[in-house]
């Protein structure tokens, strides 16, 4: 077999004794990862002229996060379920159920921290219940969560008596619709009357960029010290610059409207934690291993039942979190809340490059997938096109995204 003709070329860009990956290989290996970002940008740019660039506006970008965070949070759980060849159809009903229970808990006088903790605990319990049937009783996830979908919808109707539960005050909805600047009562640092800049998101943005650059540089130096392949200096700097610029621009957008949305912190933390779990921990490796080939994983000494169980507990917990966010956003707990949430989360996963064959999928990918859907919904809303059209367009996007994914995968020889 012809070999060694693809990967290394000894140091361009004047690096000495550093093994660099040439641009073509890097591009080919990562096209799938980056193409979703490009598509997201493209979709925003296509809408822009039609809505006179309002979709890039500070107010609109902030609102996108207020409105669609629940999808992003659910997608982070859903991607894990799909990686291990499961699915969770119950998350919409679970959101409604947990939303109703937490509204009651909150109205009974418990503070917001207590309410949030209760939501997470109830979510994990529901996840554990479903995970038990799936992992240990070997009932397909599709069936268990289909039952869960009906069960928790029914329980929601029972506990709410099919009446909306309104929240006693605005405390509950801070998490979903408040900003850090408002909670900390930070005034604008720039205020010309028509143009204001709130500080929290700017500080956060700069801090994140600094942390990001430092950690990337350390990681790269460690790789070089060990003699591993790295991308060339130019590409490395280009990548750092692009990502830093994106973070700073987004931070500025938030700062211009109402400051840093709390929900962005929540989503950000969730993404960071689960990205870290999936990529850097033993547990994450086991999740991918079970999804990639459960029988092989088993013979490697991996307890695949336990892994499945844990993944559904995670999903339950994230559904609980999404429940608090979505209930807070509506500012009331509706018995019919959470309708089609599961479908949005699943669609975000498939748009974000998760493989239906299991074992493949990333948190960052599905977040971009969720943002693609949000950008489409939002753009169409700005154009005053109703829900009906949004469904049609979303359907086409899911179909095309998966087609594109299958196509590029086949080209890259990934089957």
């Amino acid at each position, binding site marked *: *077999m*012809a*070999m*060694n*003709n*693809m*990967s*290394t070329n000894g140091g361009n860009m004047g690096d000495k004794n550093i093994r660099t990956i040439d641009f073509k290989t890097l591009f080919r290996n990562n096209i799938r990862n980056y193409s979703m970002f490009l598509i997201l940008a493209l979709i925003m740019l296509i809408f822009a002229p039609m809505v006179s660039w309002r979709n890039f506006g500070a107010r609109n970008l902030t609102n996108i996060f207020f409105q669609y965070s629940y999808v992003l949070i659910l997608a982070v759980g859903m991607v894990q379920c799909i990686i291990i060849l499961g699915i969770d159809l119950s998350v919409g009903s679970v959101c409604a159920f947990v939303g109703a229970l937490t509204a009651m808990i909150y109205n009974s006088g418990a503070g917001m921290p207590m309410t949030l903790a209760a939501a997470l605990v109830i979510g994990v319990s529901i996840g554990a219940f479903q995970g038990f049937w799936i992992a240990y009783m070997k009932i397909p996830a599709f069936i268990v969560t289909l039952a869960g979908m009906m069960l928790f919808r029914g329980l929601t109707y029972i506990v709410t008596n099919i009446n909306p539960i309104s929240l006693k005050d605005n405390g509950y909805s801070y998490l979903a619709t408040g900003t850090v600047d408002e909670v900390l009562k930070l005034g604008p640092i720039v205020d010309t009357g028509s143009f204001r800049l709130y500080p929290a998101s700017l500080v956060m943005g700069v801090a994140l960029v600094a942390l990001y650059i430092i950690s990337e540089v350390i990681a790269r130096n*460690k*790789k070089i010290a*060990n003699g*591993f*392949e790295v991308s060339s200096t130019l590409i490395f700097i280009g990548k750092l610059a692009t990502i830093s610029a994106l973070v700073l621009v987004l931070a500025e957008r938030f700062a211009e409207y109402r400051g840093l949305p709390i929900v962005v912190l929540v989503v950000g933390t969730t993404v960071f934690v689960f990205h870290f779990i999936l990529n*850097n*921990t*033993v*547990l*994450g*490796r*086991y999740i*991918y*291993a079970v999804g*990639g*080939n459960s*029988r*092989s*994983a*088993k*013979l*490697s*000494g*991996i*307890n695949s039942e336990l892994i499945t169980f844990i993944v559904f507990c995670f999903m339950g917990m994230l559904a609980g979190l999404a429940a608090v966010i979505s209930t807070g956003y509506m500012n009331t707990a509706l018995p019919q809340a959470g309708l089609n949430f599961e479908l949005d989360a699943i669609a975000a996963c498939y748009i974000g490059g998760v*493989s239906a*064959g299991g*074992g*493949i999928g990333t948190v960052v990918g599905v977040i971009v997938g969720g943002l693609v859907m949000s950008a489409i919904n939002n753009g169409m809303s700005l154009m005053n096109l109703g829900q009906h059209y949004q469904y049609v367009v979303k359907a086409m996007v899911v179909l095309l995204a998966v087609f594109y994914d299958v196509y590029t995968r086949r080209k890259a*020889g*990934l*089957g």
Partner: protein
Amino acid sequence: MDEYILEIKNLTKEFPGVRALDNVDLRVKRGEIHSICGENGAGKSTLMSVISGVYPKGSYEGQVFFKGHETAYHSVKDSEKEGLAIIHQELALSPYLSIYENIFLGHMQTKFGIINWDRYIKESNKYLKIVGLNEPPETIVSKLGVGKQQLVEIARALSKKADILILDEPTSSLNDDESEKLLDLILEFKKQGITSVMISHKLNEVLKVADTVTVLRDGKSVASYDVKADKLTESRIIKDMVGRDLTHRFPDRKSQPGDTVMEVKNWTVYHPDFHKIKVVDDVSFFLRKGEILAFCGPMGAGRTELMMSIFGRSYGSRSEGEVLINGKKPDLGSCRAAMNAGLGYISEDRKSLGLILIQDIKTNISNASLGKISRFGIVEGHQEMLVAEKYRKDLNIRSPSVHQMTRNLSGGNQQKVVVSRSLMADPDIFIVDEPTRGIDVGAKSEIYSILNDMAAQGKSIIMVSSELPEALGMADRIYVMNEGKIKGVLTHEEATQEKIMHLALVN
């Protein structure tokens, strides 16, 4: 009519980054048995895929002539129409359909879209007779053994009125007896004027039936021999395949087994679905430190089932008996527990039980021992890379980097990845199930060296093998099994192929 039924000139086929075939020439005479040999990754399967139209005209350079005219196939259907039938290494039957349905699937004639099955049942009997398969045509294919399924495949090829049969490793999953029958069948076809092209790793079989042998190496056709005229020998073929002499197929080894490390007493395993059937029946054996044991016997003798049931009860509905390791009775209830007790197991089926094909080399190696390269549950990526690189170098895994997906590796290199994973887990007792199945001669001898090194380091090895020369060349003692029982044990000095066969099949 031309002398050559199939002729290939200057065929080159490239995949992204890999030149799989490089100026290959091949000429197959009408009515002969033509064997193609080569290491894994030499391009044999790619060549067959080009010939049969899996890769359409235009995706390769060069010319393929079939029956005197140049082919321009767009799919396998086109080549089938012209009388070319290919039987793949992995059988392509539909498991839950009957024999006759499988034989005629895809090329039955219909009247107004309705199939006259009675006619096909009758006709399938004719083909079953030719291939010597004595089963009612209504039998569901999944109930047949692999050998019989292979015969159904051949019957299917015949029913398409094939002039040329291409067989990719036809005997790789058959036992000696079944292989013998199949080879006789191919010889029988030759008498009837059917040309066969046979890809095979088993050189003794090649020399037995083939008229012509073509050897591929690194995508090039390096030599073509007339078996009789050139007095072709195995070592000649091996030399061409690997490009060097393999003087020691089995590396020399001085073994001095120490104390008993593992003892299995009266071990009985019941079938996972039929709870009364004993798949392993009252088996006892022992293993000493630094010893290599081989387990021989025909397919279905219960060897794999025995090993898997010991390793974390991975087989069977339940098991009885005792396993002692260093005199103690450890918990072997799960694979993890078995690994903690010092056992390691390499499955015979590396694709579906061994590797995670969509993951890279590095991850596959580290998956079983993440505990060693992690702190507080966090995997240390750099250490993982270093370990994986070490094994890639030590075991000579041929790939540009450890980031290569295991799906894209050749069989021998895949096997080395599986072995690396077990080495990293560092077991004291290493159970390897068919460690060299379907891999090329060069990789085989590398695997043998690894096993010998391990034994020399004081590890103990149990090797399940269907290749008798391998067992004879490697093992200190050979246990012979059949029908779930141990039929006898032979030492290295006293064992011969005949004695093993005799023990397995006669008493």
